């Protein structure tokens, strides 16, 4: 069947930066704010989300021909909830302390809009390969966003990166950065920076 919409490669690249789920689409703000006080929980969350996003995209794409328009959201949610539960159990079994630290945020992946948006926008309309590439691209984009925010917060807040000391021991550690306000401050500044670069690029493009 003839495919419409972007190709697999375009989907993949779009997910990473041009349509970055956090910096460009402003989706999935809950984990972005809640689990980025350290790099390790942020990466665990990114991994769990990637698993759910890719699996949900592939399954949705496989059954896209059978979807009834008014039941599609129900099917998406069912699919996503299943993979979230699997991810939650795997974390509890193999990385127990991370699972405890992330607490309710792993089950909350179910309501992460990035995933249902990808099912709706891409996977329910395009082939498996494109949906897979889209899931991988978006996952990388989401991981990069979480990682960038967690890096700023962990280095400024605790003077460490991945629990390794990167700043001299005399660094006082800005406590506010590991607390919730630090998440809002970091997200705001990074969003502003990303937007500023985007505007400069667009302006430069117009000038030529």
């Amino acid at each position, binding site marked *: 069947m003839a495919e419409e919409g972007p190709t697999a490669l375009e989907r993949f690249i779009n997910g990473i930066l041009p349509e970055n789920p956090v910096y460009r689409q402003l989706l999935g703000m809950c984990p972005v704010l809640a689990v980025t006080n350290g790099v390790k929980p942020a990466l665990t969350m990114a991994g769990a989300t990637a698993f759910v996003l890719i699996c949900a995209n592939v399954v949705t794409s496989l059954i896209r021909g059978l979807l009834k328009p008014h*039941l599609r959201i129900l*099917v998406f949610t*069912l699919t996503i909830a*299943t993979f979230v539960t*699997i991810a939650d*159990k*795997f974390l509890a*079994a193999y990385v127990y302390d991370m699972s*405890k630290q992330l607490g*309710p945020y792993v089950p909350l992946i179910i309501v992460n809009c990035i995933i249902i948006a990808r099912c709706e926008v891409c996977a329910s309309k395009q082939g498996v390969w494109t949906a897979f590439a889209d899931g991988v691209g978006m996952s990388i984009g989401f991981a990069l966003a979480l990682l960038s925010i967690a890096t700023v917060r962990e280095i400024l807040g605790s003077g460490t990166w991945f629990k390794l000391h990167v700043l001299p021991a005399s660094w006082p550690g800005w406590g506010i950065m590991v607390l919730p306000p630090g998440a809002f401050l970091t997200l705001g500044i990074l969003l502003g920076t990303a937007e500023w670069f985007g505007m400069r690029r667009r302006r430069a493009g117009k000038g030529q």
Partner: protein
Amino acid sequence: MSETNTKSGSYIGQAWLVILLSLAFGAALAGVQTSLSGRIAQNKQAETYSVIPQLAPGADESKTAEFILTGKDGKEARVYQALASDGSPKGWVVPASGQGFGDVIELLIGLSPDLSTITGLYVLNQKETPGLGDYVTGQDFRDRFKGRPTDKPIVIVKSEPQADNEVRAITGATISSESVSGIVNTALANLQEPIAQRSGPGAANLPAPGPATE
């Protein structure tokens, strides 16, 4: 199109995918649960052991004795007797769980050797609202249970506690607070007697131990 079927048929015609997927996903989840539940239980067990010295001050986690007791509700329950490195009893650790605001809350309750006071509380698992109900895991809230007597049920109050069986609620999370006290009360009512029988007459003579070592 299939939507133009007879009315009774069209419901199944529309919903068959959802029904089929529910069954398939349900089976997949059952498989995951069966294969991983052992490991998850082991992780919880390891965590329980690691916090026993917090819950029963002076205890040595490697000396812990496990008992399977039959509670008053007729169900079997696992309890841990905390022992010091010289083998003297330091208290009891009782796992308990019950419905919270979000999901099941799993607790470990530390009791003095004579079972008269609560010596500590630990939250093994919870999915309460982040920023409100999840304060039940905080040291501050858990310490409010320390030293409460076990002869009367614990009561959650919204102001400063007046009686020694009163515990102040977390502001904005009364239901979570009451869930915790409810789980504690139920577990104590259920298991206090069976444990007392098990611990024997000598155990009551031991004084409650000193402050927690962390």
